[in-house]
């Protein structure tokens, strides 16, 4: 089962970038402010002249958790999975998924640790359009 598809002018571009292995963040054409999640107007100068820019996806992990019991039924998760809040070096912050390590755990993550965007494949993005992050060394 897939999440309810919600496609509109903001999600179409963002989801397409994720499926293409890129992390696009919104940028204001008037004041250069970077915005995540994407908005209808710039939250800094209120301009509607908004576009997209590819982000390096580097940042620090503000917090994270491993969802073990009680995932939403429509999400269709079999095992545990991790989500985290990432403060991107470019300014905005966002919530995404975290890759497990080779041992299948998330023990190598820590609050304020360095993480980087590491995309999921297009099939996974079609199912769950989320940005995935990994620790810098893994």
């Amino acid at each position, binding site marked *: 089962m897939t999440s309810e598809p919600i496609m509109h002018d903001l999600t179409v571009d963002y989801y397409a970038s994720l499926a293409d292995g890129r992390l696009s963040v919104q940028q204001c054409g008037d004041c250069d402010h970077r915005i995540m999640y994407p908005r209808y107007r710039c939250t800094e100068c209120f301009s509607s002249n908004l576009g997209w820019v590819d982000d390096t996806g580097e940042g620090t992990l503000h*917090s994270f958790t491993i969802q073990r019991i009680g995932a939403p039924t429509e999400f269709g998760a079999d095992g545990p999975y991790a989500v985290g809040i990432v403060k991107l070096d470019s300014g905005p912050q966002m919530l995404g998924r975290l890759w497990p390590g080779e041992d299948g755990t998330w023990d190598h993550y820590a609050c304020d640790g360095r993480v980087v965007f590491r995309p999921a494949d297009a099939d996974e993005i079609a199912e769950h359009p989320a940005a995935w992050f990994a620790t810098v060394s893994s």
Partner: protein
Amino acid sequence: MTATLEHALPFPEAGSAADAAFIGIGELPSGRFADRTFMGALVEVSARAIIDAGLRPRDIDTILLIPCLHGGRDQADLIFSRLVEELGLNGRAKSSMMIHSGGSTSDSATRVAAGLIASGQAHNVLIAQADRWGSAPVTDMVDMLSGFGIPREWEVPAGVTFNAVGGLITRRYMHASGSTPEEMASICVALRDWARLNPNAMFKDKELTVERVLASKMVADPVHAMECPMLADGAVALVMTSATQARRSKDAWVRIAGSGGTVSHYSLGQEADLAVMNWPRAGVEAYEQAGWGPEEVDVAQVYDSYAAVVAQGLEGLGLAPFGEAARQFAAGRFSPGGELPTNTNGGLLSAGHTGVGGGTALLAEGVRQLLGRAEGARQVDGAARAVIGGTGGTYMDSQVMLLERVTR
């Protein structure tokens, strides 16, 4: 001139006609009551609060409804004035309306009531809440909670759930404060100790230990199953009026000395600091208005759907040093017999999470303490000043009401 916040407006003086007063409360036990109907519970607590206030139903001119979360039909009944009709107020009530800001609704409703009373647009206001959250199908409620307050385009696809929200906050709080799992679990135990003194609490008969909390399954690291709130049925109502009316019918009542608040996010992913939220700013505003500070607080009732939520609330409101609330819980400071009795009804974690009603129950408990009417050992001797802290959504706001006891 003393320094004031630039947006601070003159606040009604104690005892003036514009000063709002709590004069009645009504509550039913929280828990699972499959045979208790929603409307029956709502009418019962409303009747109890009105009688407690020394009023007749026909004296109520305005009803402020706290939403229910268990079902859309009952919610629609509330919005479309069913309670007016059930109380026989049709043709008499001036208005009946729903106020909704999730878990902080009771703070919002109190502000609306106070404003209506101060401006002469309402005389006697009934604030009423009921929910059947404990009797509703658990899967439906979990799915609902995972879809509300979490951006459907940006975060639902990542699989965020409500317990994941609790996990994210708790992880950051523990990182920032250096609190241990034992210290976090001790918060749940302290609240359970209070619940065991409250005849209306869901878990009034079940003892809890740190060992049992930590032995329960991990739900969303670092939050264990017994650190998650249990959904419950519940109902609570309050009556507010002007100090002028309160003086006519009561020897003692409760006034709002100050209030403050900050809305900090919609999406938890946008919150700047999950360990702090926006409690400090909200507290400064409220204390400034009240003219008294955290050191003068006798009892605190701060939203506690997860242990970290009440810990950061107490810290941000100046009731514990930053990073120390969990350790002070472990040392007994907020427990029965402790220096600062906190969440004396057992809080959401042990009295029961009654949906939007969890915050309303904390507010009612604060009023009850100041009226000196908590049962037995739960009553805090000489309680004259209370802090109420509320938050809604994914902890989207930090709302503070400072209450004080007034005698005729």
